[in-house]
């Protein structure tokens, strides 16, 4: 994605907006597919003490570069402690210690339900996607869930093909009716806007447009009829520090991950 005339890309705006939603005392479970970039930008800017947990067992990790997989060595090397995977899911996630579960999505509906399992029918899928990994329980055991994804009609759909992880179901008190006592998706950050669920219906509502983004553009890239808050904000543009932090992080990451390939080429 190219820079707009404001000096940053929509993707950068998305990552930075997501990073701002994280607080210094958050304990954040970074699920597969989620932009750990946002979590690490938060850590490198306003939330130096944020606890980042990857499901590989690394607790309180502080990588200098973004991991390519959720089990990269640097996550372990910089963690406060690294535990076994069953302990991760039992004591740390199910134990109710995670304040924010951070999920990405292949398909998302307006109630924050996510599909990363299949396109088509489960028994005879058109496309077999990777599946849920930690997401089904991240979605129900984290106190809140943040979702981040780039907008597209293919991704933000009226009806998802499979409930990989449960958001607000059919809306309203559906979570409560299933015995789920956590808040569920409370924030959706896309490359174009910030969305929050309506307090009653739980339908995602645009509360802030990123700089230069119009309502029409949001609607054109969303498969359901978007609702906009009456008091619609404009997302503050990335600060110089935020942009520099993100870009430095990505540059370090690129260099680090290219080195193995280079080493190989040199053989």
């Amino acid at each position: 994605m190219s820079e707009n005339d404001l000096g940053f890309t929509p993707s950068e705006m998305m990552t930075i907006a997501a990073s701002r939603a994280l607080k210094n005392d958050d304990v954040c479970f970074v699920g597969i597919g989620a932009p750990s970039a946002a979590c690490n930008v938060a850590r490198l800017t306003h939330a130096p003490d944020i606890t980042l947990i990857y499901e590989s067992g690394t607790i309180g990790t502080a990588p200098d570069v973004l991991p390519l997989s959720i089990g990269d060595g640097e996550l372990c090397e910089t963690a406060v402690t690294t535990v076994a995977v069953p302990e991760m899911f039992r004591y740390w996630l199910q134990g109710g210690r995670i304040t924010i579960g951070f999920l990405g999505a292949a398909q998302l509906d307006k109630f924050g339900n996510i599909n990363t399992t299949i396109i088509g029918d489960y028994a005879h899928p058109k496309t077999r996607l990777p599946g849920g990994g930690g997401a089904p329980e991240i979605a129900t055991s984290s106190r809140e869930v943040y979702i981040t994804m780039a907008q597209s009609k293919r991704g933000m759909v009226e009806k998802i093909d499979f409930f990989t992880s449960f958001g607000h179901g059919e809306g309203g008190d559906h979570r409560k009716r299933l015995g789920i006592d956590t808040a569920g998706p409370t924030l959706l950050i896309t490359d174009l806007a910030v969305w929050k669920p309506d307090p009653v219906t739980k339908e995602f509502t645009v509360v802030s447009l990123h700089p230069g983004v119009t309502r029409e553009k949001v609607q054109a890239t969303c498969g359901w009829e978007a609702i906009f808050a009456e008091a619609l904000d404009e997302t503050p543009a990335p600060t110089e520090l935020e942009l520099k932090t993100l870009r430095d992080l990505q540059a370090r990451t690129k260099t680090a991950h290219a080195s193995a390939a280079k080493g190989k080429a040199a053989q």
Partner: protein
Amino acid sequence: MVKFLPLKKAVAENLHDGDTVAFEGFTHLIPTAAAHEAIRQSIRELTLIRMTPDLIYDQMIGMGMAKKIVFSYLGNPGVGLLRRVRDAIENGFPRPIEVEEHSHAGMANAYEAGAAGLPCAVFRGYRGAGLATVNPNIKSVSCPFTGEVLAAVPAIRPDVTFIHAQKADRKGNVLVEGIIGIQKEAVLAAKRAVVTVEEVVDNFNDLHPNLTVLPNWTIAAISVVPGGSHPSYTHGYYDRDNSAYLEWDEIAADRDRFQAWMQKNVIESSADDFAARVEHLRKAA
């Protein structure tokens, strides 16, 4: 009691047609060399269990060795999809494959229950999740004190588990360190366990007492295979070969290219070839 064996013999003695087998490793310490040996020995009709099937199950399934796969995340970590597994699930190529899908929490708890000798695992999971409706092995029990309905899944009890680890001592005790994943549980849940290690050291006398050490009597066979987890990594020995994961995405996208790659890099290779593959990934001392 554990035996030190060449990998070829360790696989032949412990893995048989029709077995339920786990090759575990959570991104780190993936037992690639053992999987490649199983491919060379053309073991068939396997039920493959793994939380994160990645390249090695893509390869085994692409070679038609599996009748069933049990998993919780079917991706090429950091890259995308597993194209040979997709071909099997979507198109039945080279053969149809049965799928049993769980969440990570479900699999982790099921391995834990297997290690703990329990018939099933009980946890808070799958609420509102589609898997609970498509997987008959997801049931529920009620807490007899609070009435809360909890998920239950059967314990995982593989016939044999393969893992890769840093080192063994001469008595055959095994050390696993770094991102230890589900390996201890996978070994203890299995009837037999085979471990490939980077090296053998005289003893573990200087180890911290709380590290993850598998006593020798919990292991059937150990094979020394330096580099045996490539293109995954071994904490303390060599880094992850990220470029190999990217490259795999292209290799696996094409049936013929896949076959040619397998012929050259697996069928016509051996466990001894792994050491050279990680040479450029070792940290400068």
